[in-house]
């Protein structure tokens, strides 16, 4: 296994995390770092524990053992919204948008962290609150454009086609103003061309200095965008290295990649 191949400042550290569900061990020992501005992919067979790892990092699950730190702060015991407020935001593997609300309002809700309204001011309807509201709408609009679903702003979230719902999910996460973004299979259900467009969105985000941790089964994409790849199998890390190192790791090929890696 490779040593940490990053020279960047590690901001997210997963330290010897284990997760058990009753007798079932979903993660046995997970230990890796993500550096500032880095794009790290977490891959592995189905049921390896990737989503579980996301759940632990973002406070939806308490680890049985170990801890997670973000910019030096321990995340143990924090609630999901507290983790988010530190700038660590995730998307979900299963499509997750506010179904019965318009796309635009979805993003407005996502902007929750950026609102400056006070309860008193709101009830008194002070000018400051009204201006803040106008500013939010502006921001919502920008995010929709960035993700490329602005033409659907007035559609209901739930009536978007599957792929666009996934984009909306990303827009929601971006609205929460993350400095580090955790994406759980963002391009599943997208075809190659849609994926390519998503990759260019990823690149824009990287250019803005966002740190990204990506879970994805689309190997061409993962190999193309990742700075580094961590491979998980049965809750253990079996490899950690650059895309080319991973691509040729026999254990990874055996457990995960199979023979036809070079599709497309």
């Amino acid at each position, binding site marked *: 296994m490779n040593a940490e191949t990053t020279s960047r400042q590690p901001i997210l550290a997963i330290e010897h995390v284990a997760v058990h569900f009753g007798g079932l061990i979903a993660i046995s020992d997970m230990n890796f770092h993500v550096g500032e501005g880095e794009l790290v992919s977490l891959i592995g067979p189905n049921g390896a524990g990737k989503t579980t790892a996301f759940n632990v990092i*973002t406070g*939806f699950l308490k680890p049985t053992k170990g801890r997670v730190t973000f910019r030096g702060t321990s995340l143990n015991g924090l*609630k*999901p*919204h*507290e983790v*988010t*407020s530190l700038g660590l*935001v*995730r*998307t*979900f593997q299963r499509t*997750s*948008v*506010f*179904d*019965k*609300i*318009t796309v*635009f*309002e979805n993003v*407005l*809700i*996502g902007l*929750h*962290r950026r*609102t400056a*309204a006070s*309860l008193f001011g*709101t*009830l008194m*309807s002070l000018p400051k*609150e009204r201006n803040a*509201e106008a500013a*939010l*709408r*502006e921001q*919502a*609009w920008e995010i929709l454009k960035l993700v490329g679903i602005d033409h659907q*702003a*007035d559609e*209901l979230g739930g*009536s978007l086609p599957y792929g666009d719902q996934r984009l909306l999910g990303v827009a*929601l*996460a971006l*609205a*929460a103003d993350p400095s580090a973004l955790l994406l759980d299979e963002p391009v599943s259900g997208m075809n190659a061309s849609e994926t390519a467009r998503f990759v260019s969105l990823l690149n824009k985000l990287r250019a803005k200095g966002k740190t990204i941790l990506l879970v994805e089964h689309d190997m061409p994409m993962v190999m193309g965008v990742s700075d580094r790849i961590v491979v998980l199998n049965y809750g253990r890390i079996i490899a950690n290295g650059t895309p080319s190192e991973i691509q040729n790791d026999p254990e990874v090929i055996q457990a995960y990649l199979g023979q036809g890696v070079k599709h497309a």
Partner: protein
Amino acid sequence: MKRFLPYIAVAFFASVPLWLQDQYFLHTLVVSGIFMLAAMSLNLLLGYTGQLSLGHVAFFGIGAYVSALTSLGFSVSIFGFQITHEPWPPVVGVILGTLVAGICGYLIGKLAFRVRGAYFVIVSISFAEVVRLVALNWVELTNGPLALPGIPPLTIGFEWTGYATLWGKAQNYYVVLVAIIIAYVIIKRLVYSPFGRAMIALRENETLAMSVGISVTKYLVLAAIFAGAMAGTAGGLYAHYIQIIDPMVFMFLNTVTMVIMVITGGKGTLAGPLVGGLIFGLAPVVLRSYVGPELQWILYGLLMILIVFVLPDGIVPAIERWFGRSSGNADDQRPLTLETSKAPQS
């Protein structure tokens, strides 16, 4: 047109005591108004945060008891300490009732929002039942089933101005009307703000809401505080208007009445509880003049069923849709949304 609707409604309702001769009808309007206020507060929980609270009458009753006891005075011994309270003016009672009910909202919110959905429904019912049983059995304070009679009517004024007692129906009617307007404005500002959006987000998808940084407890508790306090105000007004309360104020049917008002009117809409409240506040009066006792109830039940059948989202969304359609931008798929994007021209 739509913008002026609330003002037209207020003007109309403000004029009612001026031309309405029938005092009994005015009485019905006052009582319905009090229940509408309670229904509006329930709507905050049920309509905006999606928490089906079937114990809402607890806040109403707590407001009523606190207000009544404040203005009647009491003397109880708790763990050997004798606590005696001399009567205060009724207005202070209503304010205290509002505060105490709000605090109960806070406590219940903190505790009960650990559970969701069906479980919350039962916890809320249980809470109301426990409060009812306390009111029934803590005879020293509440007089238990013997009721608290002789609650003074509301008075307005200060020590140096002298007090005006609100005996009349018209005066009470205006007090209730003003309370409803204030509650309406508060709820409107709240739900159209980031606070309200957070509540709606929790209603729609809690996990997702958390993931964008919305604190579940904070917003549910906030809603519970406001809902509790407003229901408390309604309870206080009720106590001073009816002038007697007993543990029957906590009866489940009162919660059911509020729920009916909210859902038939249109949950999650500002005007819903008011429209529903007017219909189901007046329905018994209308029915009473035509049919026998059991049939009154049966028709009342059928009316509810009919409204839900014909207008599943409630009356107000249906009217809005109808308005929308006739003005040419119909969209019947979105009764729950707050607003459209109104893109800035950039």
